[in-house]
């Protein structure tokens, strides 16, 4: 849950030098005038600072996490979080048009409402739709994305059947310094970003940033769109800002306050009548906002604790043929503890989540509360590692639900390991499914999933390789089924697959990140490929350093999909491959020029029938980093 984020933040802070084992401290205090003796002949440096390579510390020590770093985000330019996740996150996406349009994410072949979005430790999303508006997260203000695929309800609660995506706003920890950038690009794309993160005094960190983005966009729909077609350009405007303050009290305690607010206006096409006379320029305004107050600290030598108090808002106003206002407010409190116990680490936590819906639609019920308790333990015995997590959620709508996860890993040697894990997860029905007037079923049960996964990780040369086989069975899927076309828990799905990832420094100047998934996403009722999900997809991200410049490419491949519950020729959306190129050049240490061309081959492709995808687009960025 969010608390783990807070703990992670405290662990990663530069004050947690406690974590560095004593033996390493010797390495870090290298003597002066070391260069003549220890630096290799090819690189003359006066001083060398060394440290041992680190494991990526994950809150789930058995299942791998995919990390998208600050550098990856910067190279993505002025783009969308969903497109970045498609290439580097090992997930599938759909978008209803160009930049800023509604998007969905599928993880491990699960539905779009099976992905949980957490921003700075606070859950963000719409309780009416059950999804999060990923398109409203401004890339320019975030420094890191962590993707945890697989059943994660025992750690994060409801809805984490496909997985969890954690987003972190910029902080002094990973993105110190000041930066100002201006971007211009195709379709009248303009972006201006200014941000600062750094230390104020010895114990305080401050970060703040603002971002302004607008584009004329592309035409979101095409003539295939049965719902509404309007051949106008559908523009997007986004203004975002974030502030973060972290105050340290000694080496063991810290308090942090983080705020993110993003306001967007996106034009789209709707209206049931494609007749030119009745078309209108529809648009919607979205406000997403998260506020998190986190405390983390050591209560004793063996006891690490953290508290998160958070509030998030997802508000959308539609000005269209069917106008409406939908606002979801989520308030959460959580207390998580890690205690060193019995040769490992025990986890215990409690959480409280209140979801409120505020809308001009008269929902039959507009709020629900979830109280949860968690227990867990992880430890190592020689080469074996074990992890157990149990969680009980008490939802005011459907009652109690328990989930759990068991994981085991065995280190074959220092560089390789095999792992296996089994977990259950669930998805709470949405307010639309439960309480929408005339279209809801108030006694719906949650959707359930049972998932087994087996994998191996190894380090070869400079690269980390992982392979994971997974089998995800989802039952009680909610569907608007005949005869009454009300939502019922009737459907079943089963997704089996293999995921390969590889990443690391191939040569001294070449860095690569590869992910590839083969899967069989089956609707078990019909034995057909699940709607909008592919059988194969992957991405490759390459970056080559050339002195003070760098060039790179993003290659994305997605197999064929069907935009229907049956594999019919009419619903077929063809496979597509995308090539993006990017380059950056540091003219001086302070001034930098960056450029990017997306969809170099101008490939026409579809992620959702009736909706267009952007063709070839280019952008150029000028970035100034004053040495504050």
């Amino acid at each position, binding site marked *: 849950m969010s608390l783990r984020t807070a703990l992670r933040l405290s662990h990663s802070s530069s004050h947690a030098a406690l974590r560095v084992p004593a033996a390493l401290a010797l390495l870090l205090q290298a003597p002066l005038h070391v260069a003549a003796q220890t630096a290799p002949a090819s690189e003359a440096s006066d001083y060398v600072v060394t440290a041992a390579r680190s494991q990526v510390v994950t809150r789930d*020590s058995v299942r791998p996490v995919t990390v998208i770093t600050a550098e990856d985000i910067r190279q993505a330019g002025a783009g969308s979080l969903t497109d970045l996740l498609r290439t580097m996150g090992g997930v599938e996406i759909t978008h209803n048009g160009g930049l800023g349009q509604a998007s969905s994410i599928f993880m491990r072949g699960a539905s779009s409402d099976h992905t949980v979005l957490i921003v700075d430790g606070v859950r963000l999303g719409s309780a009416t739709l059950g999804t999060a508006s990923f398109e409203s997260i401004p890339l320019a203000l975030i420094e890191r994305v962590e993707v945890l695929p697989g059943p994660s309800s025992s750690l994060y609660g409801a809805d984490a059947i496909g997985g969890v995506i954690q987003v972190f706003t910029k902080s002094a920890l990973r993105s110190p310094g000041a930066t100002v950038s201006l971007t211009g690009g195709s379709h009248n794309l303009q972006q201006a970003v200014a941000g600062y993160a750094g230390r104020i005094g010895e114990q305080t960190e401050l970060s703040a940033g603002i971002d302004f983005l607008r584009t004329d966009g592309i035409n979101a729909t095409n003539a295939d769109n049965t719902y509404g077609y309007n051949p106008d350009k559908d523009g997007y405007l986004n203004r975002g800002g974030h502030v973060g303050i972290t105050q340290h009290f000694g080496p063991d305690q810290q308090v942090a306050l983080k705020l993110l607010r993003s306001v967007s206006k996106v034009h789209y096409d709707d209206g049931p009548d494609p007749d030119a006379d009745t078309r209108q320029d529809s648009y919607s305004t979205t406000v997403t906002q998260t506020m998190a107050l986190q405390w983390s600290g050591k209560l004793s030598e063996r006891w690490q604790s953290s508290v998160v108090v958070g509030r998030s808002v997802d508000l959308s106003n539609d000005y269209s043929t069917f106008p409406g206002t939908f606002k979801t407010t989520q308030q959460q409190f959580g207390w998580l503890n*890690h205690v060193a116990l019995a040769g490992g680490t025990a986890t215990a936590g409690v959480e409280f989540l209140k979801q409120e819906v505020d809308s001009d639609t008269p929902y039959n019920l507009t709020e629900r509360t979830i109280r949860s308790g968690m227990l867990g333990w992880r430890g190592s015995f020689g080469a074996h590692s074990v992890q157990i997590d149990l969680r009980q959620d008490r939802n005011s709508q459907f009652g109690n639900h328990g989930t759990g996860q068991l994981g085991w890993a065995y280190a074959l040697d220092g560089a390789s390991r095999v792992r296996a894990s089994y977990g259950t997860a669930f998805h709470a029905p949405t307010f639309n499914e439960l309480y929408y007037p005339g279209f809801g079923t108030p006694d719906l049960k949650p959707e359930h999933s049972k998932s087994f996964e087996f994998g191996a990780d190894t*380090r070869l040369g400079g690269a980390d390789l992982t392979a994971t086989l997974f089998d995800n069975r989802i039952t009680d899927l909610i569907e608007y089924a005949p005869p009454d076309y009300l939502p019922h828990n009737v459907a079943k799905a089963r997704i089996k697959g293999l995921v390969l990832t590889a990443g690391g420094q191939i040569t001294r100047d070449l860095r690569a990140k590869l992910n590839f998934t083969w899967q069989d996403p089956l609707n078990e009722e019909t034995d057909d490929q699940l709607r909008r999900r592919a059988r194969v997809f992957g991405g490759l991200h390459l970056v080559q350093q050339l002195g003070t410049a760098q060039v790179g490419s993003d290659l994305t491949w997605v197999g064929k999909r069907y935009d229907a519950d049956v594999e019919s020729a009419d619903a077929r959306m063809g496979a597509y491959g995308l090539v993006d190129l990017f380059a950056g050049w540091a003219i001086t240490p302070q001034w930098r020029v960056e450029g990017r061309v997306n969809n170099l081959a101008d490939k026409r492709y579809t992620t959702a029938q009736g909706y267009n995808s952007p063709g070839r687009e280019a952008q150029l960025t000028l970035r100034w980093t004053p*040495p504050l």
Partner: protein
Amino acid sequence: MLATTAPPVPTAPRWRGVAVVLALHGLVLWGWSMASRSREVVVQVETPALVMIQVAAPSPAVPEVAAPAKPGSRPLPPVVPIRMPPAPPAAAISEALASIATPTPAPAVSAASAVPVLVAAASAASAANPAPRLTRAPQPLPGNPLPVYPEAAREDGLEGRVAMWVEVQADGLVGEVRWAQTSGTRLLDQAARDAVRRWRFAPALQAGEPVAGRLLLTLQFRLQGPVSWLAQAEASL
């Protein structure tokens, strides 16, 4: 600039002007030569010390000089001022001077004592002001702490080299630090600069006087060793 008109033909009274000018020139030249000679004399006294230091310093070569003058012999030939070799440590200079301050065998007591006294005086003066002509760049003092490898960079496997121009003030403290070459990772650039800002330096010297100076420093951040799954458990708390 080319003259476009012919200079006037000098008349008799003009010769007086020329004579004055020539006399002034002669005065200046004479004064300059006097000053030079007096400098040479000073160098002369120190020459024995320079001869000893030559052993410690690699280059440039110190020209051969005559041994200390014996009484009654002709005056020591003037010595061309030589370029100082790069900074032999002050201690070495004092040591060298001390070694020649011990009396050497001399034919006449009075004369012999004069030279050691001169040399001793020179050595005393030199010890107090070890390298009056020394010019060198600022140097970091021992004991400056290197930056700690930023934990976030270590987790993400980020490495790189940072080169910085460091302005060192006359008091040995750092004035301004500017990046000459960045590593591509702000985290490492900032860690390097924040560490170097706190360093102490021996300031630059210009003819023996501490002055503000500039120095190019490079720091390399490097990760070592393979990742070990066996060490995973340690990292969890």
